């Protein structure tokens, strides 16, 4: 155990000191020998994939749990010995906002104020301040359960801010929040740090890390990196390159680039391929490679995510065994998925309004949009989970209304929560998926063995999927979804919360399958995933407001700038443009 004594002047600004912290759950070390400092007046990002120990650390800092070993001092108070004082000093916003959904906004605020034993005069002044700050003023009478994800987070934040805490702990405030509301959250948090509050923002999104003053990067219960994000990205200087518009096919180029010895990581960014070289690697190899695919390697500034992947020893190779073993998909028509004026009403509310688009064979098509925009409804209608009120949805030419079972046997589906049977073992899950899609006898047996081999599931066959590490659970979910070699694959937020290595492995498989002719439809909040798409449809207020290749959308939003905006900014720009066109006052409300 390493114990570091904080120097006297440093103790001055440290809001939270964590020394040699270990937390065990049974035989599992959720956190191992963790030492870190969180400073007042700064925004500290607690970054890491799901299962890294972020929430455990948050709960420990909020005094809700006691450390197994080591100490945490919040503003000088030990959380174990002085547990009673911690709630008065900290504001904690858990992942599932602790809101009472059947109470209105103002009733929730009142409740939290009473729980904090605040006086009546403080109350009214405090409410006005918080409502102005969060811009929830117009919605005080609305039930908390009826708020959008972003507004719920803002209300949760308001409740956490009730007692004007000096330490604010936010557990994944960005989850389920669309980019527009997320911007609002950042604005509020920045105002708080300016007032000297120590804010901890836990997140699985690595792009959020770059916006923090300082970052604690967690992986598997251990600190991988601690310090300002620039410090980590600086180690990657001159190692990140962009290959714009490579020939013949960017997915093939990425796959080959990842197999180069000097390349440690690579992703697709719209029409370009982005690669990161290994430490100390010469750029000659990538230059030659770029030339061979008809483009040039352009140096780009490194990102925080590059640093994380580098710390973990680089991403996986570019070859998907799964795709290699697959027979090329043959489809009668060129259209894999089609919706014609798809409309769905829930009572008075129209969730999707005459949505039409066509997805060609071998295309990755993304459905993006803020919560409640209708993308889940559209997605559900396309994979047969919901019947449209009007319009038609076709999968490989089969109408989901008239030939549901036949159409469904042509699609594979993988959801964010990886809907696996926790009561069945890994092998039983595989057998169930195979059987449900009509595989039988020897064909079923060989296919299952193949999946076990490709996804390295041998060691886990007897375990329940619930006991698997997240990465393996995702592999198993993908194995179950592609067991029957479906020509069309539906992915519902497939990699949110997953560590970047697993995410790359996942996309390597998807890219490989797409090259064999599989069509992929994906909904996502993750702007990185949108970059993998050939085309994205942006949904807002039940309609498709933009449909094009990611880079084309970026160019549209860039308004002539030479530098293309990020996908997230493009998204915000397009939505704001619609709001402005619809009604000017409402646009101001959102922005």
């Amino acid at each position: 155990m390493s114990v570091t004594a904080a120097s006297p002047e440093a103790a001055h600004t440290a809001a939270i000191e964590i020394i040699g912290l270990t937390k065990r759950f049974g035989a599992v070390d959720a956190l191992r020998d963790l030492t870190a400092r969180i400073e007042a007046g700064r925004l500290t990002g607690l970054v890491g994939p799901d299962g890294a120990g972020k929430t455990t650390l948050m709960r420990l800092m909020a005094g809700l749990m006691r450390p197994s070993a080591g100490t945490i001092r919040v503003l000088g108070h030990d959380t174990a010995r002085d547990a009673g004082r911690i709630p008065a000093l900290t504001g904690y916003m858990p992942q599932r906002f602790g809101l009472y959904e059947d109470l209105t906004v103002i009733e929730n605020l009142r409740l939290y104020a009473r729980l904090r034993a605040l006086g009546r005069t403080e109350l009214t002044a405090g409410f006005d301040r918080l409502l102005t700050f969060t811009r929830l003023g117009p919605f005080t009478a609305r039930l908390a359960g009826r708020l959008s994800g972003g507004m719920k987070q803002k209300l949760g934040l308001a409740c956490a801010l009730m007692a004007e805490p000096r330490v604010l702990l936010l557990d994944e405030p960005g989850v389920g929040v669309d980019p527009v509301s997320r911007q609002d959250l950042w604005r509020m948090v920045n105002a708080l740090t300016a007032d000297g509050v120590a804010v901890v923002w836990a997140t699985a999104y690595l792009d959020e890390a770059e916006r923090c003053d300082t970052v604690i990067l967690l992986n598997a219960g251990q600190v991988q990196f601690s310090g300002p994000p620039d410090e980590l990205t600086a180690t990657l200087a001159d190692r990140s390159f962009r290959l714009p518009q490579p020939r013949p096919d960017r997915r093939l180029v990425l796959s080959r680039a990842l197999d180069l010895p000097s390349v440690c990581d690579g992703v697709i960014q719209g029409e370009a391929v982005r690669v990161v070289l290994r430490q100390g690697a010469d750029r000659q190899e990538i230059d030659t490679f770029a030339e061979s695919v008809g483009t040039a390697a352009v140096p780009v500034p490194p990102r925080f995510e590059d640093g994380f992947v580098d710390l973990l020893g680089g991403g996986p190779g570019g070859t998907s065994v799964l795709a290699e073993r697959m027979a090329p998909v043959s489809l009668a028509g060129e259209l894999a998925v089609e919706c014609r004026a798809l409309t769905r009403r829930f009572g008075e509310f129209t969730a999707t309004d005459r949505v039409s688009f066509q997805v060609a064979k071998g295309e990755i098509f993304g459905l993006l949009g803020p919560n409640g925009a209708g993308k889940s409804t559209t997605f559900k209608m396309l994979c047969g989970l919901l019947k449209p009120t009007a319009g038609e949805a076709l999968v490989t030419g089969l109408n989901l209304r008239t030939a549901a079972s036949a159409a469904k046997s042509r699609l594979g589906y993988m959801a964010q929560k990886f809907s696996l049977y926790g009561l069945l073992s890994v092998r039983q899950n595989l057998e169930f998926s195979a059987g449900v899609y009509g595989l039988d006898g020897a064909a079923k047996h060989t296919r299952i063995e193949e999946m076990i081999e490709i996804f390295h599931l041998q060691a886990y066959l007897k375990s329940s999927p619930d006991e698997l590490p997240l990465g393996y659970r995702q592999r198993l979910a993908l194995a179950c979804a592609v067991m029957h070699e479906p020509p069309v694959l539906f992915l519902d937020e497939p990699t949110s919360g997953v560590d970047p290595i697993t995410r790359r492995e996942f996309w390597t498989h998807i890219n490989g399958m797409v090259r064999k002719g599989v069509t992929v439809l994906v909904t996502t909040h993750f702007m990185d995933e949108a970059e993998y798409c050939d085309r994205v449809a942006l949904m807002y207020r039940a309609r498709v407001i933009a449909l094009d290749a990611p880079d084309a959308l970026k160019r549209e939003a860039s308004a002539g700038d030479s530098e293309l905006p990020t996908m997230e900014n493009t998204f915000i720009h397009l939505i704001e443009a619609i709001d402005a066109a619809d009604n000017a006052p409402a646009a101001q409300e959102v922005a």
Partner: protein
Amino acid sequence: MSWPSPRIRAQIVKELLSVWRDPKSRFLLIGPPIFQLLIFSFAATLELRNVAVGVCNRDNGRWGHELVSRLGAAAFVRHLRPAHSAAEIRDMLDRRLVLAAIDIPETFSRDLVALRPASVQVILDGRRANSAQILLGYLNALVGGLNADRTSPPAGNDSRLPLEGAGGEWLPPAADRDGLAVRHWFNPNLIYRWFIVPSLGGVLVMFATLLVTALSIARERELGTFDQLLVSPCTPTEIVLTKLVPALLIGTVMGLVMAAAGVFGFGVPFTGSFPLLFCSLLLFIVSIVGIGLMISSICSTQQQAILGTFAMGVPAVLMSGFATPVENMPQLLQGIAQIIPLTHYLIILQGSFLKALPASEILAHAWPMAAIAAVTLSAATVFVRSKLQ
């Protein structure tokens, strides 16, 4: 294509594994039936045993002693507490030390010998009305026995005012010498277990089946696998049919085990037709599965499903004739009882055990169950299909 198709086979295997691999549901299926069998058969009996009775014997004669010694030897009496005055009797009853007290007057033997009507006073604890009633019956029989063994002519009775406070009862006339003799057909000794054990077979099968099916869809909904099932090529009819299989299997095994426990464990005679009872059991289970699936399809969590099971199950048991005869219920409730599968199954079950119920009678109660099954299963399919809209 072979039948069942791989698709249906995979679903059936999944359903069976889900029930079997879940320690909670495994316990729910094995634990409570055993407990209930033991509790209902031994503890919750309507027979009286281990009763304490107070006796104030003011009679020094032979018959007073005879009565006391017979009381002491009676199987239902555990303690005989001697009392010496009316006040002491009152005190024992007040403190619930005894369920009843018998006051034998000084003149008891004298009257009997003199062939005058003799009487004893029985004071019962009216707070425990049910037990007191039964005890009174036992005491009546005991005094009747005494009377019969006496060579002298019968003793009459008179009535006196009951003691204040404790609910008093006067011993009615000892059975008339030439009065009627009651004979209980099918269960001559009125062994309570003969009634309770077969009926329990029906009640437990109902709860097990209801719980297994109610949990099945709700569990998938709660854990998110229901969507996965709905995007697969499985049709709603298939989903409902495959969810029927484990319940059918579990219910059948449990029904048979309970019947075997009745016959071999508790010595209940089985006089009816086993194949007919077996068919009725299957029909009964299918009708319950329909109800279970309906509960399941409107619940979104397993907790709601368990609550739903008891909200449906407990009134069904109370109205089925298990606890109180259906004929004693108000007209409206009698009508409702007819749409409870358990009502019909209990008649078949008890009839098959004790009175060799003829096939025509079984049929008369089997078709309502078939009708209920048809309605509830179709409704469940519609519910599942509606989740697709």
